[in-house]
């Protein structure tokens, strides 16, 4: 053993005292500061953590023997996941949130200006406040772990990086990349972060050795970071050089102005001005660069406070919490894990389900009735995975190894081993019954039969089953690999274990799940139908599809109503409108179903047939209104009522019908709770995220105001606008709220 290591061992002191979240150890002349929240799987910048961190910083910086420091998390898979959202929400006023922000700024300023070099050693998620902490450090080392992601997701919560992020990030990665990060909130993998200059050095993840892989990887990261910290203190490790060309270009004011302008236009185009956070982010960055750091930091803390008080931020934070809640299985652990899943029908939906299942290591059988159909479906799965290879999130070897678990076939071979069958065949009760009987003849007794339908009541399908307790509805949204929502429908005969198993499969597939009761259209389709019926009426009243789209997107829907109908398929819309019209009567009326039917007859089935409300030409992004539809609209023309036909009235007609139906679903017990209602509407149907879902919208906008508007429309159109009892109750008593 050489002299140096001896010294090192002698000097190692572990300082813990009574702190629970932050501890440190001094090895030779390097302080290793370790973060570990004992009460959670992730570290968040909570009050306690910040307090302890300040104490530790004081001690470390006050210790003359310490020449450098390393900041590391002891948790596998998480560095710091961000600020504690509850802490921000608990503030109550903009001033309090602003002061929280400026405290954070001060803490990180101290880190940045620290006389000794501080190295951030990052393994796992480094997000929001965690990233702001890391970029205040002198040097960043990250592991190549798949869980290591860096990002500023604040914008997705209607906030901005409030602890110096808007000021430091542009300096670190350049103006364009900083805007991209802060305005999209996307996660950046370690290798990309290295290329961007966000981290200075990468460390490999390790396999098993003398300890478990995760434990050893963190230890290794620490060893490397300690070496770098010492090297920085001794000036043996050079600081990473910045990109000179970009810096030079950004030195010109007119170039910067051009960047601000472009970013501004892009944001306005995408948000329609409905989301205040992106604009504020641009404002803060601009203030810092153009007027100096003092103005920048001030703008950042003040805007952070303002944003925290906006209804948009509350709505988005509500969605975040809701999403977390809908990622849990409230039905417990199922008796059996689904290891083999069979899918009937290799169409868009079936193949999509196969894709999100097979890549989770589940043996997947994809069955169709024709070779052509099967081949198309398998090709879709391959393409989905291969796109990930192109994006480098998967290697070609991993792709092949995943696909080895997919079996495409035309017969029922292997179904005797299936733990769950998901059928995605044509939406026709007779076909579904035939399939159900065929499948029940070959599957083992424990196997669950899930039916993927958007409108047929599950109990009608289950009527043909010998074991209705094993029948459940699983309503996926197209495209399955992109849409996060899964609506699970239980009948009163569905067993709890069947539900638990379906939820477990959905969670494995990465879905956000709502579990709703059975009934025509369940929850999502049922809410969408009246809105689409209203959209058809609006078209009949002479508003063209483009204008209709502008009105809906202007309200915050990501996709316009006409485009949505084309995407869903006009035939499907007609089918659903007719089915639900029968079930619910005149309340689901409005537009004339015959209009949709005529479109279908003419072959205008939407995007899939190349024509719908619009014309779709391959390779062409621009959409033109289908000229032939005008003649149909002319045939079904209705006279608009001037009192309820202003742009704003049209928007409210569409939205209030949606909202009222959602509230009625809760009233009737189709929905279990308002949280699932909001999540289902936003993630499945694109209800404006800035409004947080129909229930949060009622809370924030006021049930009384909605009722008032509906009454006005009711006078013209009748019972389609009659508010439901629960909505009336809320209107009468303002203290009643869906969300606390």
């Amino acid at each position: 053993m050489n002299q140096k290591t001896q010294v090192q061992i002698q000097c190692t002191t572990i300082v813990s005292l009574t702190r629970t979240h932050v501890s440190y150890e001094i090895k030779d002349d390097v302080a290793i500061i370790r973060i570990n929240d004992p009460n959670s799987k992730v570290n968040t910048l909570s009050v306690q953590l910040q307090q302890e961190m300040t104490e530790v910083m004081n001690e470390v910086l006050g210790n003359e023997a310490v020449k450098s420091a390393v900041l590391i998390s002891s948790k596998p898979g998480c560095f710091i996941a961000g600020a504690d959202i509850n802490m921000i929400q608990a503030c109550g006023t903009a001033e309090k949130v602003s002061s929280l922000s400026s405290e954070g700024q001060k803490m990180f300023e101290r880190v940045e200006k620290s006389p000794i070099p501080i190295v951030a050693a990052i393994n796992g998620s480094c997000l929001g406040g965690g990233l702001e902490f890391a970029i205040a450090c002198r040097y960043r080392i990250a592991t190549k772990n798949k869980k290591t992601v860096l990002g500023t997701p604040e914008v997705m919560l209607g906030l901005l990086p409030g602890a110096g992020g808007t000021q430091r990030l542009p300096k670190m990665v350049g103006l364009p990349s900083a805007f991209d990060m802060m305005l999209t909130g996307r996660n950046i993998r370690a290798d990309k972060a290295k290329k961007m200059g966000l981290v200075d050095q990468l460390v490999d993840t390790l396999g098993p050795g003398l300890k478990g892989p995760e434990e050893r990887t963190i230890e290794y990261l620490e060893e490397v970071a300690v070496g770098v910290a010492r090297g920085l203190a001794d000036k043996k490790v050079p600081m990473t050089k910045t990109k000179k060309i970009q810096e030079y270009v950004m030195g010109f004011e007119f170039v910067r102005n051009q960047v601000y302008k472009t970013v501004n236009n892009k944001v306005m185009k995408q948000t329609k001005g409905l989301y205040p956070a992106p604009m504020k982010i641009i404002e803060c960055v601009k203030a810092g660069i153009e007027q100096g750091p003092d103005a920048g930091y001030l703008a950042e803390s003040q805007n952070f406070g303002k944003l925290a008080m906006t209804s948009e931020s509350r709505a988005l934070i509500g969605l975040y919490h809701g999403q977390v809640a809908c990622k849990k299985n409230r039905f417990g652990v199922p008796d059996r894990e689904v290891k083999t899943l069979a899918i009937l029908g290799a169409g868009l939906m079936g193949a999509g389900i196969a894709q999100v299942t097979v890549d989770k290591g589940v043996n997947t059988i994809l069955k169709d009735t024709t070779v052509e159909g099967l081949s198309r479906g398998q090709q879709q799965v391959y393409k989905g995975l291969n796109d990930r290879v192109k994006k480098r999130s998967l290697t070609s070897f991993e792709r092949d190894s995943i696909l080895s678990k997919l079996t495409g076939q035309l017969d029922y071979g292997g179904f005797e081993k299936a733990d769950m069958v998901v059928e995605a065949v044509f939406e026709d009760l007779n076909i579904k019954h035939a399939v159900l009987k065929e499948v029940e003849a070959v599957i083992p007794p424990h196997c669950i039969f899930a039916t993927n339908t958007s409108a047929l009541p599950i109990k009608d399908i289950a009527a043909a089953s010998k074991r209705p307790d094993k029948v459940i509805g699983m309503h996926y949204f197209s495209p399955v690999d992109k849409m996060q929502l899964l609506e699970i429908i239980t009948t009163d005969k569905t067993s709890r274990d069947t539900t638990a198993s379906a939820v477990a499969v959905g969670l494995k597939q990465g879905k956000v799940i709502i579990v709703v009761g059975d009934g025509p259209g369940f929850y999502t389709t049922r809410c969408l139908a009246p809105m689409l019926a209203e959209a058809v009426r609006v078209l009949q009243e002479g508003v063209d599809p483009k204008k209709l789209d502008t009105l809906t997107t202007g309200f915050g829907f990501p996709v316009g109503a006409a485009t949505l109908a084309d995407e869903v398929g006009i035939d499907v819309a007609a089918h659903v409108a007719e089915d639900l019209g029968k079930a619910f009567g005149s309340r689901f009326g409005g537009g004339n179903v015959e209009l949709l039917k005529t479109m279908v007859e003419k072959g205008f089935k939407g995007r899939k047939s190349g024509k719908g409300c619009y014309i779709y030409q391959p390779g062409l992004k621009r959409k033109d209104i289908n000229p032939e539809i005008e003649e149909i609209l002319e045939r079904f023309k209705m006279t608009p009522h001037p009192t309820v036909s202003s742009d704003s009235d049209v928007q409210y007609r569409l939205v209030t019908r949606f909202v009222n139906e959602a509230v009625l679903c809760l009233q009737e017990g189709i929905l279990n709770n308002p949280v699932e209602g909001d999540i289902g509407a936003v993630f499945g149907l694109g209800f404006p995220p800035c409004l947080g879902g129909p229930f949060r919208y009622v809370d924030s906008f006021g049930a009384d105001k909605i009722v008032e508007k509906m009454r006005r429309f009711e006078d013209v159109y009748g019972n389609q606008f009659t508010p439901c009892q629960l909505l009336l109750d809320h209107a009468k008593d303002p203290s009643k709220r869906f969300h606390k």
Partner: protein
Amino acid sequence: TFVFRMFNIVLVDGVRTPFLLSGTSYSDLMPHDLGRGALQGLLNRTGVPKEIVDHIIYGIVIQEVKTSNVAREAALGAGFSDKTPAHTVTMACISSNQAMTSAVGLIAAGQCDVVVAGGVEFMSDVPIRHSRKMRKTMLSLNKAKTLGQRLSLLGSIRMGHLMPELPAVAEFSTAESMGHSADRLAAAFGVTRVEQDEYALRSHRLAKKAQDEGLLSDIISFQVPGKNIISADNGIRPTSMEQMGKLKPAFVKPHGTVTAANSSFLTDGASAVLIMSEEKALALGYKPKAYLRDFVYVSQDPKDQLLLGPTYATPKVLEKSGLTMEDIDVFEFHEAFAGQIVANLKAMDSDWFAQNCMGRKSKVGVPPMEKFNTWGGSLSLGHPFAATGCRLVTTVAHRLQKEGGQYGVVAACAAGGQVFLPKYTYAQLARADTEYSRGATVQVFLVHSFGLFSVHVLCMKMTMCKSVQKHF
């Protein structure tokens, strides 16, 4: 009918050409030239009548496209009978182990009595292809009928078409180079740079000693056509810890621990062994050098356990034959990287690893260093991928004779570093024996697994222009 013959299989003798750093004296040859040298040397040394050789099996990793069945080309050129069938095998760095065990299989199955096995690797020249786009254009050009078609095809050639495609230096399944994997393995087991340099230095010193004392008697001289006679390995370079300490890491930068000095280097060389049924050998009046008793191949996860084959295979073959570590007199492990050897030794000494990764109750146990690679190893002698296996087996036989032991074990790790290689790590175990003269039963176990594409990367990189480097 198939009769499985339960009798002894013996190693009559083994030879090899000197192993040279690639790009040195052998640089103008072709792979089969070196293979010819080894096979001719075996004929000369053993005096085996060529008409009694039933079969020839030869290994190679980086294939020369002109001699895809290099076994046949080398055998014909070496003067073997044109009536003797020959085939080529490939299994990364244990290709000649595969050749030997295939030979054992042929004899055991009653197909053959006398088999020649061996392997060759020639890294001074590797096939560098045109890009896929260019190949496609050139193939279409063959089929083009009119001048116009030809011109339009020629006109479609762009700068990108001209980018050459080098043999992949990364594991196909994981896209990780062997050296990078070795560095991660060393880190996983906490193997320090100093430990690696010390082990590499030991290898070079022991090799130098063995060379000076004339122990490397498996070497046969090779006359490079039109040039001088080569009779010694040229990669043995015992330096000092200080010198080695100066090198920068070759793969994981800047904090890695695997360097050019503690890795095996790109090597040209060939080897060959003569394997017979004991009955036949005795009838021909030979005094065989060892029994080949048993072997095992294992494979693991190609990402994190790529180079750990010896740890997995050694206890398996010992248990199979009812022996323990203590019974073994001679260990010959292939040294892909010093870090890989030290990591394997640590793995064998770890209860945690045995319990969590191998499903064993307790650790495998470490071979005593005084019995371990005492005449140098791949780090110092060199590692022509497909030739190393025969060197290891012949060395065990010679060491057993020289040191008077009874049992020996060979272990080597292998991987797929090239597109045509197997996807998983293999370790193979075989046992051989010696000591006919003393009448005692001496056994050798061969454990193999891995190879090493590592330093290749390094050397190739140095000679490559910058634009090509971006490929890696």
